[in-house]
């Protein structure tokens, strides 16, 4: 198919009214697809659509051009209402070459009837190899019912700029603006913001390209997509989960982030490095993760709680220090933005495989608090809770997020800020006569923390087993007692938590239990399964240590309980696998242990967020129509 000439009088476009639509824009890395996708997502949110944006990131910085592995860009899911996850498949794709398009096709990212707007200069290349690649790609794609619309993007851009490589993304943005009826003034504001550090000239040429794309689409694309918008009833903010973590840390009054760069956690420190100092905080890039953890512990010990941020391999290195924080009852917040493992694993991709390492990875008995935010909004609020719990319970608090939350961008209600979220000023009052370094309350294990500078204290804290006075003690009685005191605190925290609420009916055939970033996808899957008549509900946990109370009672009301997790588990029916040797999903191990309920699991490690449809399939597999056995 060839594009209609721009001079022909266009027929009015067909209008497609849908409750949601998913768009991808993919290019070689460095061609600006991400900027285009981000602006499109931000403007859509401002206009009153639900939006979930994820980055499509190649693992290499400069992959060679025109290879599937180099595909870089964004997927933007738009909805009439709030969008909580990246969805199933893409309905419309803009691709800058056929190889990056193939990458998306091969991971089954595109709906069977997806519309594809593709740069077609490759088909007309003087290089016979490129033409052959194009032809082969078209053949591979022909198995699906895609509607492929060739667009001479660079030729178009050349009519107004000298170098079409720069700014092609703005032409693409113009196409999207027209197809989705986006507000051009708002787009221009976003462009002005995105290029605020560049010259007026750059802005002007970007806007010219935007308008060129818009008009080209007006003349040549025979359909439009309309997704109803609703003005938000409260002010919204839009950001990714790592920015939310950074802002939450600021709102909690923490003043030191000690870190060592590691994907996908680093962008928290990129964000904080830019703004933290004006809030009275610093980002300390240490020589390694071990040192980062030590610096955070030193700062916390000396005053306000500090935090360290990392991903799986870094958490492994911090292990010994984490135990020290627990043993010396030094408050510390650790954020682990999980990626695929083990080892270097999948550096840029989501996984939820560090739960057991987080809970049990330290040597000895090392009770501490572990939490997991389920949404971008919770990434913000959890930092405030984490700081406060670390201080109150005098212990380590781990926050487990993942690459899905880290790079997902979605709007949420702007928090109403509260000064009380912040750490209190340092208390340097003299210590009471006879006060102990760890004046454990015998019932709760809680004790007051004494920081240097307080007259009359002068304790030496130690990682060696110690008594209340921090005297090194090797006697078994003291170790038993101090272990009980550190452990008790976790139970005390549990006594203060409320049971989680079930999503859907409170009884039924199947309860799906999840944790972390999968909440949106799980609940969407539950909605769909219920529409099919399946009696399914779900439960989402924020606390992993201690577990939220009342789980056993909740589980009892369902015939079957199953976790859905982004970590590996064996499937019954795989060679050699049986009930006894089956390696289970990490949350299911935890829940079976805590409740003695035969909790089943369904886990996948696809290197991408779970798609609701795959969860629906899993549910169907576990609950045959007509109810569970």
């Amino acid at each position: 198919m060839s594009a209609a000439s721009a001079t022909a009088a266009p027929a009015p476009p067909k209008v497609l009214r849908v409750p949601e639509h998913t768009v991808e824009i993919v290019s070689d890395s460095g061609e600006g697809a991400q900027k285009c996708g981000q602006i499109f997502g931000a403007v859509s949110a401002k206009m009153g659509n639900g939006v979930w944006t994820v980055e499509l990131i190649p693992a290499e910085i400069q992959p060679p051009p025109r290879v599937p592995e180099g595909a870089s860009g964004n997927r933007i899911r738009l909805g009439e209402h709030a969008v909580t996850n990246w969805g199933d498949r893409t309905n419309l794709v803009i691709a800058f070459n056929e190889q990056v398009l193939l990458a998306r096709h091969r991971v089954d990212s595109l709906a069977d009837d997806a519309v594809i707007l593709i740069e077609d200069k490759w088909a007309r290349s003087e290089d016979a190899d490129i033409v052959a690649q194009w032809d082969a790609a078209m053949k591979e794609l022909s198995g699906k019912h895609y509607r492929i619309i060739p667009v001479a993007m660079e030729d178009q851009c050349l009519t107004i700029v000298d170098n079409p490589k720069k700014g092609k993304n703005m032409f693409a943005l113009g196409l999207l603006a027209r197809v989705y009826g986006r507000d051009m003034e708002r787009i221009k504001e976003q462009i002005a913001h995105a290029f605020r550090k560049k010259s007026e000239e750059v802005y002007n040429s970007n806007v010219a390209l935007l308008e060129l794309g818009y008009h080209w689409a007006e003349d040549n694309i025979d359909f439009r997509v309309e997704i109803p918008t609703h003005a938000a009833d409260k002010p919204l903010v839009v950001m990714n989960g790592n920015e939310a973590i950074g802002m939450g840390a600021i709102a909690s009054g923490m003043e030191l982030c000690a870190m060592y760069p590691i994907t996908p956690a680093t962008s928290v420190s990129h964000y904080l490095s830019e703004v933290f100092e004006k809030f009275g905080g610093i980002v300390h890039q240490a020589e390694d993760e071990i040192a980062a953890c030590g610096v955070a512990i030193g700062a916390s010990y000396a005053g306000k709680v500090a935090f360290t941020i990392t991903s799986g391999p870094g958490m492994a290195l911090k292990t010994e220090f984490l135990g020290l924080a627990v043993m010396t009852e030094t408050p510390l917040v650790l954020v682990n933005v999980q990626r695929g493992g083990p080892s270097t694993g999948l550096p840029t991709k989501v996984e939820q495989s560090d739960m057991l390492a987080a809970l049990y990875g330290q040597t000895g008995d090392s009770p501490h608090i572990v939490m997991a935010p389920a949404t971008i909004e919770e990434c913000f609020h959890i930092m405030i809770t984490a700081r406060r719990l670390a201080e109150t319970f005098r212990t380590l608090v781990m926050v487990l997020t993942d690459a899905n939350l880290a790079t997902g961008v979605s709007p949420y209600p702007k928090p109403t800020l509260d000064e009380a979220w912040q750490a209190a000023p340092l208390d340097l009052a003299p210590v009471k006569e006879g006060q102990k370094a760890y004046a454990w309350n015998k019932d709760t294990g809680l004790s007051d923390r004494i920081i240097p500078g307080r007259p009359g204290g002068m304790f030496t804290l130690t990682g060696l087993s110690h008594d209340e006075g921090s005297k090194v003690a090797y006697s078994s009685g003291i170790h038993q007692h101090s272990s009980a005191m550190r452990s008790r605190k976790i139970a005390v925290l549990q006594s203060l938590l409320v049971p989680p609420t079930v999503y859907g009916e409170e009884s039924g055939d199947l309860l799906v239990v999840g944790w972390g970033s999968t909440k949106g996808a799980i609940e969407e899957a539950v909605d769909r399964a219920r529409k099919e008549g399946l009696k399914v509900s779900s439960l989402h946990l924020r606390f992993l240590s201690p577990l939220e109370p009342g789980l056993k009672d909740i589980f009892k009301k369902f015939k079957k309980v199953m976790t859905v997790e982004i970590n590996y588990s064996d499937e019954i029916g795989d060679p050699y696998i049986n009930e006894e040797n089956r390696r289970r999903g990490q949350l299911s191990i935890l829940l079976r242990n805590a409740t003695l309920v035969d909790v089943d699991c369904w886990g996948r490690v696809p290197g991408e967020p779970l798609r609701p449809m795959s969860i629906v399939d899993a549910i169907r597999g576990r609950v045959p129509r007509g109810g569970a056995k």
Partner: protein
Amino acid sequence: MSYTCGLLPVLDQHEDHHYEMSEYEGAKARWCPGCGDHSILTAVQRLLAAEQLVPEQTMMVSGIGCSSRLPHYMKTYGFHGLHGRALPVATGIKLHRPELTVFVTMGDGDCTSIGAGHWVHAMRYNVDMVAMMLDNGIYGLTKNQTSPTTPQGFKSNTQPYGSILPPLNPLEVALGITNASFVAQTAEWAPSHLYATLRAAYKHKGFSFVRILQRCPVYTPAIYQKAVQDPARIQLLVHDDGVVTPDLDKIYQSQLHHDPRDLAAARALAEQTETIKLGVFYRDPSKPRYEETRRVAPRTPAERVALLEKEFARYAV
């Protein structure tokens, strides 16, 4: 980082109190009789008394090893952490509370083996603290294993046929690190030199690395014995900007006038190991200090909330 304590009225209750040396004494030291660590502990307590350091504003940070027990024997605040990791903890303390005076005690294994990476970077950060490396040339606490500073050929439990490698020279390493600002060597069996060196280290604004040669009476009684018995094997580096100990002139007649500002000369001296050189090799108080370059204006909760409102406006939909 802010020290919100700075916003509170400062009560100076210390003005008229004179601290006796005994007021810096903590638990009774449990090192072996004859262990050089005893003398180091005394020198530190003497220094604190001489300088009238306020106990609650003084921090002793250590790693793990015999030497790292030192904080328990002091009556100051102390943090006895992990093997090799005293320096990151001390760095964190100073970043948040620069007003505290920090001393770090490490063993030779602690500092130059498991903690070598932190040592290199701590020298480069140049955070104001006194870092003492108590070098007995052996792993003491774990009972006689070869350390990086064990003399070549020395027989230990892990290298029973003799230490395989030539020993690492901590002074050469320290003097090779960019932004190093104070490098000195002293010996525990020369108490007045030890005291004077620690005092110079304390007076120096920046990261003061002091290698203290220390006898282990159990595992390495011999390694410094010749030098202890024959003062001619020792050469003092003397300078008004370094350490001067007139009371030692009679014993240590081999002396060299060395200007601690001369880095090239310091490196050359560090390389010469036929005689043991005690004194300040290098000192440059003008080197930037990390806790100073990273100092930021403190914020009140109200200011922080106001700024955060503005920050949210950038992300407003």
